[in-house]
């Protein structure tokens, strides 16, 4: 039966250990069992002191993060290490893909997008209806597969004194049914504000067209994409393709940083589903503050200059 450990499957991109792996490791710690990390070879940025055991697979990352291959890897790991109590993945494109396929293969319970754990009841919190409510799930058999929401558990990681044992899982054959070909960067060229994760959006309140280059500078420095409200387009300060709102584009970025946008209803309709809305406006009564998660009442252009200075200086 269960061998009393948590197996964390690493997410690796272009040789780098993704930061959201800290959340899977963090949940592993909260579960109170030794944590083993499963990863391919040649990965940079792993802090092995966070782990109790490291299991290395002789495969490149494109082969490793393949749901068909993952099943064969897990079969091997379960054989050599015993069956874990929990198998944890990041709740990401590949993490969720591998977890679903593996849970289906092993007929194992799976809760995805876990953002909380209740020690007393042993239940996992999973968001429903875009975080409007949460379901607490209990697993009825083992091993339980979980995918973990980024940002949820990273503060729980702890460091060991000594480096963990590193073991090899051995060679893994690629899968016939699915093969990795290459990475593709999303096509550049025309700006698509609907695809951006971080939008810096400006409104009429910035004052004049002359201010636009400084906002472009800030967006570049913060690696944000610049968008705007309708009056900015009407005044030809920015092109139509940058417009957010009912008569422009509907966007759902991770962060929507609204600078000098008062928040007309038609604008709100285009951005209200952003994960995090930060509004900066000089008017404390601006309607956008009703929709924002964070608000700052300030002289927007002054704060912009300070941000450019800080970001570029760091």
């Amino acid at each position: 039966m269960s061998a009393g450990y948590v197996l964390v499957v690493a997410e690796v991109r272009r040789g780098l250990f993704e930061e959201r792996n800290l959340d899977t490791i963090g949940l592993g710690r909260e579960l109170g069992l030794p944590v083993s990390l499963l990863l391919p070879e040649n990965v940079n940025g792993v802090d092995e002191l966070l782990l109790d055991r490291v299991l290395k697979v002789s495969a490149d990352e494109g082969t490793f993060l393949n749901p068909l291959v993952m099943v064969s890897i897990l079969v091997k790991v379960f054989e050599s290490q015993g069956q874990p109590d929990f198998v944890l993945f990041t709740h990401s494109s590949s993490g969720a893909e591998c977890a679903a396929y593996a849970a289906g293969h092993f007929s194992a319970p799976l809760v995805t997008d876990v953002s909380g754990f209740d020690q007393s009841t042993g239940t996992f919190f999973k968001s429903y209806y875009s975080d409007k409510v949460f379901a607490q799930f209990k697993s009825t058999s083992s091993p339980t597969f979980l995918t973990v929401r980024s940002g949820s558990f990273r503060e729980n990681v702890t460091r060991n004194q000594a480096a963990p044992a590193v073991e090899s899982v051995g060679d893994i054959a690629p899968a016939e049914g699915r093969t990795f070909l290459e990475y593709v960067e999303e096509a550049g060229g025309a700006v698509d504000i609907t695809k951006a994760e971080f939008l810096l959006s400006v409104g009429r309140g910035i004052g004049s067209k002359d201010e636009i280059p400084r906002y472009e500078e800030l967006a570049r420095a913060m690696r944000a994409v610049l968008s705007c409200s309708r009056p900015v387009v009407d005044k030809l300060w920015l092109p139509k393709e940058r417009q957010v709102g009912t008569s422009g584009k509907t966007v759902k970025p991770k962060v929507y940083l609204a600078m000098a946008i008062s928040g007309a209803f038609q604008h709100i309709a285009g951005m209200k589903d952003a994960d995090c809305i930060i509004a900066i406006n000089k008017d404390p009564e601006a309607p956008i503050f009703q929709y924002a998660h964070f608000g700052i009442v300030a002289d927007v252009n002054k704060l912009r200059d300070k941000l450019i200075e800080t970001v570029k200086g760091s």
Partner: protein
Amino acid sequence: MNSERVLACMQCGKCTGSCPEAGKTPFNIRMIVRKKQFERAIEEGLPWYCTSCNTCTIRCPRDVKPSEVIIDLRSALIEDGRIPATIQKALENTFVQKNPWGKPRSKRADWTEKIDFKIPHISETKEKRLLFTCCIQAYDPRCMVIPANVSRLLRIAGIEFGILGEEEACCGNEIRRMGEAGLFEELREENLANLKKYGVKEIVTLSPHCMNTFRKEYGDLGIRVLHYSEVVKGLLESGALKLKGHYDKRVVYHDPCFLGKQNAIFDEPRALLAKALGSNPLEFSRMRENSLCCEGGGGRMFFDVETTYQRNSEVRVKEALEMGAEVIATSCPFCVMNLEDPATEKGISVKEVSEILVEVI
């Protein structure tokens, strides 16, 4: 089909001559009718420029009804499923939530929270007079004040009225003009069923767009459909509603297309303003039948035009400034929304007529 009169067109060009989109945009209504006569292909984006102001149809000497030709063209695109994304969103929202912005239907009566008395549901009223809210006035914080103001005026004058609350569905005026005939029919059926169920005897509308479709496109209702300005004019004349003092600003009145040129209600809003101001409002050079469209009708509130052209609302605001007006008054929520952007810019304000009235009661 509403395009059967196209063959009667003699290409006089009166339609294009009076079109608020002609010249500045690629939209040429005479050319579209011409192409339709020969059943030639019409570029897919073009029909969406029409604001449904109806001036072409009113002026056409051969009764060709060019605005209906546009609706037919849009219908064909809709049945093909090829329409601009923002229009598609508005239609899908209306199907699900009964308003083009996709706001929850459960919140349709939230505007009533802004007033300090309770408005009964229509079923609880004796006179069965329905105040029809309209989508933008139910949900847009800027426009929510309009139903609240009119409710206050009616209440002060002792007029009994009720609302449908979350049972109210979009009237469908814009939906029909966007070419979604099936959806318009569904909305109409739903509203008709409620009018019948509650024995409504009179509908007081706030938006000229709702009034227009109730009057002309809901069939023989046997129900009086009024714009609130008609009701309030009567109340002022009878003395049921008394004003205290005057609104002391220079006000110019902008005629909404759906109230003025399409339904000949020119004098009522002016009468309301004259009472509030103590003198007649200022007039634009293009007024009454010749009023310049604000470009908010016929789905234009939702259409993502590819290039930005000078907006008619800017032309309006410029003229208002030149004549020394401090306030542009109008009586349509779409006009308010469109005029307000450039007006705020230039430091003059836009008020719906009821907003001026409540300041002097």
